């Protein structure tokens, strides 16, 4: 369906997710097929309830599909036990949620290195310096989350996701709770990670402006892919949204 030039970092094959049964049955994902190329920044858009979060969760090993397959690199997630799934999340994936991304008892730096230290590892220090510099917290690294602004908190969360050099970073509406200035800080930071470090990012958003930071936009409706757009700008995204909505 798509022409993917680079190798795929994650993909879903005929993946369905069904909640409930009978009359109450909800097909959050409906035999979806999608691939995310390495080194690319992909935005997922779609109306509320279209299955964006569900897609992200099954791709990230936080939830399981009802049928079909989900791959991270070559690993098929449904075959993994909780322990191995956890290790995949810790060592190969990064996460940024809409809110509540940080552990309140740990300071910014500890939060950034959390997945690494859970694995008993240390970030390579050149890379850490680079990420820390990019996150732009300056002397606030020793501060706890409640002493940081929302934008700062989300940047720390992105930094955490990047620091373990994961194969792919998933972000679910990372700027959903931020004002426009903070949003653009976070988005620029993510963009820079893709441009400068070849990071793969998949981001759910409902904001055309945010989607414009991506290389590719996938539009979801009723649990399947309805359209997609390469090299989007705010205008093209809004345009496409209008078409789909109408």
């Amino acid at each position, binding site marked *: 369906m798509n022409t993917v030039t680079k190798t795929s970092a994650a993909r879903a094959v005929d993946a369905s997710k069904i909640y409930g049964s009978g009359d109450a049955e909800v097909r959050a994902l409906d035999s979806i097929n999608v691939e995310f190329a390495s080194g690319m920044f992909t935005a997922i858009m779609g109306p509320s309830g279209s299955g964006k979060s569900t897609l992200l969760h099954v791709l990230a090993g936080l939830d399981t599909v009802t049928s079909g397959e989900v791959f991270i690199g070559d690993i098929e997630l449904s075959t993994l036990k909780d322990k191995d799934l956890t290790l995949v999340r810790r060592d190969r994936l990064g996460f940024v*949620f809409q809110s509540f991304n940080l552990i309140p008892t740990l300071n910014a730096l500890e939060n950034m290195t959390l997945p690494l230290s*859970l694995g008993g590892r240390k970030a390579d220090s050149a890379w850490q310096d680079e990420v820390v510099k990019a996150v732009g917290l300056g002397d606030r690294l020793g501060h706890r989350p409640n002493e940081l602004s929302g934008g700062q908190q989300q940047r720390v969360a992105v930094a955490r996701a990047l620091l373990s050099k994961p194969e792919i970073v998933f972000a679910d509406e990372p700027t959903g709770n931020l004002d426009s200035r903070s949003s653009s800080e976070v988005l620029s930071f993510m963009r820079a990670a893709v441009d400068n470090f070849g990071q793969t990012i998949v981001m759910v958003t409902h904001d055309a402006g945010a989607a414009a930071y991506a290389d590719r936009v996938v539009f979801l409706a009723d649990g399947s892919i309805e359209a997609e757009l390469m090299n989007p700008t705010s205008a093209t995204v809004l345009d496409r949204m209008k078409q789909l909505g109408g």
Partner: protein
Amino acid sequence: MWRVTLKGLLGHKLRFMLTGLAVLLGVAFMAGTLVLTDTIQVIFDDLVASVNDGTDAFVRSNEVVDSAFGEERNRVSADLLPQVRAVQGVAQAEGDLQFYAQVVDAKGEAIGNPGRGAPSFGFIWNPGRLNAYRLVAGNSPSAAGEVVIDRGTAKKGNLRVGSRVKVLSQSAPEDFKVAGIVTFGEADSPAGASVSLFTSEEAQRLSGAVGQYDGISISAVDGVSQEQMVRRIDAALSDPKVEVITGATLTKENQDQFTQQLSFFSTALLAFALISLFVGSFIIFNTFSIIVAQRTREIGLMRAIGASRSQIVKSVIAEAALVGILASAVGLGIGILLAAGLKALLAGLGIDIPAGATQVLPRTIILCLGVGTFVTIAASVLPSRKASRISPMQALRSTGSDPMKQLGRRSTIGVVITAVGIGSLLYGLFGNVGNPTLFVGIGALVVFLGVAALGPVIARPVSRLLAAPLPKLKGMVGVLARENAVRNPRRTASTAAALMIGVALVGFITIFAASIKNSIATAVDSAFTADFVVAAKGGGPPSLSGFSPDLAQKIKEVPGVGASSGLRFAGAELQGKGVFVIASDPATSTQLFDVKPESGDFKQLGINDVAVSSDRMKKEGWVLGQRISAKFPKGASTLKITAVFGMGQQAGLSDYFISLAGYDAHYTQQLDSQVYAKVADDANPRVVGRDIKKILKEYPTAELLDQEQFKATRSGQVDQILNLIYALLALAVVIALIGIANTLGLSIVERTNELGLLRAVGMTRRQLRSAIRWESVIIALLGTALGLVIAVFFGWALVTALRDQGLAGFVAPVDRLAVIVVLAGLAGVIAAILPARRAARLNVLDAISQE
């Protein structure tokens, strides 16, 4: 408002079950104690009543000494018996004797459990209404050499009518033929005691009471009341040293004596029940505080829609009251079952309590429900006030953890309370007050409250210190455990405080016992110059048993024994004060005990002489040669201070020594508590020891100990009591653990999002469990650290206060205290099992998407 309360309860069943459990256990303990002691009381009252059933009047001596060994009364002359029988209206009158008599079976073993179980008594076999026993086999004793035994003893010793048995008494061991077997009503024996019955002459001979009785029991003819009977006998007797009482009075006196002993036992148990409830109150306080914090939004919303402050207070208190009443009721029920179980347990230990209906008095029900409910409500007062201060605005904000405010004020209050507690405790111990227990008890309680009030201030630094090695050991898991333990110091502190109390008491009693054992060892080392001591196996109570002086005589005759003496412990009144007296052979005392004679001559101690320690001389202001007044069971006399010695009570001996001849003259029963022997210089101690052991074959209740063994058995006795107290304190510790589990459970609910996030970014279930486990260990160790500090202080204070009563000095047993720390850590691990499992089971997705 009530609907809200009920909904609150139903909505959090598990939480309230755990809270209720803290009350329930304490109440069950309390109910169990009350029901058990009431039941035993009624059974014993019935027993005494049926023993005295046929007795309408009783004649006895009015010379009596009441000491720590119980009441000892003089005997009366047998000449009174014909005089009493001649009184009009007397249907029957018989002499009574009660004395030490222990039946030994064919294998040479003492029947029953001497030294631990119920006692063994000898009595005169009386005919007719004055006999409480029923023959079920054989005949009554009718001649010298015949004994009738109870069926319990017969069963245990496999004895039948016609069997030959040996009987130990105050005279030398003798052979008897079992003439008959009796029951006590339906029971095999009265409350498990061993009973042997003899003819009047035999009983008098065996108890050294020839021509004497303990008293005379009288049964009146029909139509003569007890009072009339007493008046008539009183008029007929002229001896001023004799008194006559009604059968009812006798029964009442016996019952009251028992009640007194029992109340000592029940008071001790109740004290431990109250400790458990006190610990439980911390759990309740903590749970309600956490719940109020978690419900901030809900309460704020209720305030916003018009609930008044007092309505909020009432709703929290109502919740507490409901929990309290429910838990107390269930606790009461469990306590009643527990009492039945304890009775069975006692029976298993050889203390047979005859069958009797379980006594659940209204007092028990009211007290248990009342105390349980009161404790729960009292513990919820502060949290309810806190709830009422939540403003409607807070409904709009998110549940923030409450920051530490007013730390300075809290420190001041905590320090002041602690100081007041310490002051009261020290005043009670050192201030020479009338009721030291009260000041010490209240002082200890206030110290606990004071340290608990200081808790939030010290929790953070101390926990950080305790957790310092964790990040190195466990990496990020350790960091998270430490941070979670200190993130809410108030909560951590009050959780730890519950354990602190348990550990403080366990540690204190451990230190105290070690100090006692140390001073026993010091005393034995310094005062024990004999080579051997013969003592009762299991260290039985000296007032109920002992050895015939025949044993000391036989030991004295063993070749190679240089010096020896029987030793007797007794109570007496000197100059109007109840004291503890030791009697020994003055000729050998200074060779067997290093009493450090100072002036006068120990060897000169006669019937009316006493040796007094120099400490005591100074305290009383006495001088050598002075005469002091004395009261003994056999009557009043005057004693001359003939010798002064250095090592008295502080060496584990007594401040007063009298001679065995003096004991003979002043006391009725003649039994040695111990026999000491020193080997002659030219003899081989091993051979002498072996020869003494041969003699002991005839004395199965005795054992031969050298100095080290003697020390070990005395320490063993201390350890036994220590273990008993550990067992009683265990409940308080268990409740504290429930508290830790409860707090962790509630905290985990609060941290659902956070835990989900940790799992999402790669924390394994095992790591999550480990973090919670270590958090629990930190809390447990915090409680333990605070508890041990208090324990050392309590121990030091008590040991110092008791120094002149024979305690050598303060000893902190580092090994045992280390064991306490390790056990507390393990307890923390156990408390974390359920909360950790619950946390690990959290669905990651639910957790992170929960707002």
